[in-house]
C-alpha cells in the first residue's frame, strides 16, 4: 500500500450526488436505508425519477420533517413528501414490483462487494443477528443495482474484495459501485474503473481495492 490512510475522497453527500447522476431520467428507483436515502435530495425534478419505498409508496420526494405523519414514512422510517401522481399499496404489491423486475434501479449500501459482483450488506459477523429488510429482494429483483459505500472500512480494509467473507445478500447482483474514491463497473469479466474522485489517482484506487481492477480503459474524473 502506498500510504497508511486512503486519500480523502467524497463526502457522503457528494457520493449521493454522484449516484443521483447515475440514475436514468424517467426511471423508477428504490433507495436503501442510510447513505442511499440521501440520493432523493439530489435528483433534478425535471428528470422525473420516481422513488419507490418498499413499505408501499411509489412517488415520494426527499425527507420532510415538517408535519410528521406516522403513516407517511419511507422504508427508513423517515417522514417524506409526495410528488404529484404518487400511489400507495400494500407490501405484497410492493414486492411484486421489486421481485417482478418492475424497478429500474436500486441503490443499496454495502459492507463488501466481490470481483464477480456478489454483495454483502445485511449482516456484520461481529454483531450477529442482522437486519435484512428488502435488501435481498432488491438485489435479485432490481434491473440495475448500484452499491453506494465507503471504499474502505474504518480500519482501512478494502470493501471491494476478491471474495466476500461477510454473509451474502445475493450472488452476482451488483452492476456499479460508487464510493468516496471511484466509480467501478461490475461485469461477468470483473471490475472496471470508470471514474476517480477529484484529487484521487488511479493508483490510489488500485491500492485501496482488494480485487483485480481493470484500469486500461478511459478513466475520467467524476463529474460532480
Amino acid at each position, binding site marked *: 500500500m502506498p500510504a497508511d490512510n486512503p486519500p480523502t475522497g467524497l463526502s457522503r453527500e457528494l457520493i449521493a450526488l454522484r449516484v443521483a447522476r447515475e440514475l436514468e431520467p424517467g426511471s423508477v428507483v428504490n433507495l436503501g*436505508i442510510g447513505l442511499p436515502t440521501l440520493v432523493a435530495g439530489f435528483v433534478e425534478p425535471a428528470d422525473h425519477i420516481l422513488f419507490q*419505498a*418498499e*413499505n*408501499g*409508496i411509489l412517488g415520494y420526494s426527499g425527507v420532510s420533517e415538517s408535519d*410528521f*405523519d*406516522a*403513516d*407517511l*414514512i419511507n*422504508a*427508513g*422510517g*423517515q417522514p417524506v413528501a409526495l410528488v404529484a401522481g404518487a400511489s*400507495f*399499496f*400494500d*407490501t*405484497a404489491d*410492493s*414486492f411484486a414490483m*421489486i*421481485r417482478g423486475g418492475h424497478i429500474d434501479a436500486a441503490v443499496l449500501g454495502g459492507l463488501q462487494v466481490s470481483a464477480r459482483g456478489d454483495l454483502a450488506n445485511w*449482516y*456484520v459477523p461481529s*454483531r*450477529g*443477528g*442482522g*437486519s*435484512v*429488510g*428488502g*435488501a*435481498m*429482494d432488491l438485489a*435479485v*429483483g432490481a434491473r440495475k443495482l448500484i452499491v453506494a459505500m465507503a471504499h474502505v472500512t474504518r480500519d482501512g480494509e478494502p470493501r471491494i474484495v476478491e471474495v466476500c467473507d461477510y*454473509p*451474502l*445478500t*445475493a*450472488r452476482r447482483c451488483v452492476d456499479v459501485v460508487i464510493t468516496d474514491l471511484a466509480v467501478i463497473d461490475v461485469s461477468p469479466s470483473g471490475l472496471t474503473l470508470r471514474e476517480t474522485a477529484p484529487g484521487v489517482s488511479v493508483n490510489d484506487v488500485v491500492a485501496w481495492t482488494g480485487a483485480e481492477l481493470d484500469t486500461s480503459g478511459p478513466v475520467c474524473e467524476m463529474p460532480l
Partner: protein
Amino acid sequence: MIAEYFDTPDDAIADIADGATILVGGFVSAGTPSNLIRAVRRSGRRNLTAVANNIGLGDLLDELCEDRQLAKVIATFAIRASGTRSSRFEAQYRAGEVELELVPQGTLIERLRAGGAGLGGVLTRTGLGTMMAEGKQTMELDGEEWLLERPLRGDVALLKAWRADRLGNLQYRLAGRNFNPVMATAAELVIAEVEEIVEPGEIPPDQVGTPGIYVDRLVQCEPIPVRWEG
C-alpha cells in the same frame, strides 16, 4: 360476517393464549396496532411468537421484551448494523432468551400471502446462495434455480387501519397498509384497531382495503404516536 366490537384493546385480545403466534401489522410507525400491542403487554401472556416487519426500532413490539413475553420473533429488521443503540429485544437475543428468524421482507410477505391464500409455498430467487437458503429445499425448473419458502400463518393477527364499519371492512390511509391486508388473510382470529368506526356504506366500496370477510374483531382507539429510532 359481522365484526364484533370491543370497548378496549384489552378486552379485544383477552383470550389470546400463552404460546400463540401473533402476526403484527405495520411498518415502524405506519399502520402499526400500538394499542393492541400495549394490551398484549398488559395481558402478561408469555411464550409468544411475534411475526412483524420490525422489532426494536422505536416500535412498541419491543415492550413485549420488558418482561420476556416473546419466545420467538420472525422479522426483517431486528438487530441494528451499528452498535450505537440497542433495543430490549437485542439484549434479550444476545442473552439467548429469545429466538430470531430473520426473513427477507419480500419472502415474509409472500409466505404470509401463501398462508392466507391456501397455497403450498413460494418459489423465489431471493436468498439463493445466502444463509437464508440453509436447510431449505431448492429446485430447478426450466433451467432456473428456485428456493422453496413455506407458508406462514398466525393464531391471531393484530392490525391497524384508519376506519372500519360493522361488517369489518377496513380503510387505510397513506402508507398505513403495508403488511396489514395480507396478515388479515393469514390468521385464525383477526383483530383490528381503528381510529374511527363508521356505518356500512360510509367507506366507499372502492376504498375498502381489507374486505370485512377477514376481520373478526374491532376496537376504536386513539393512535399511539411512534417514531423510528434508527
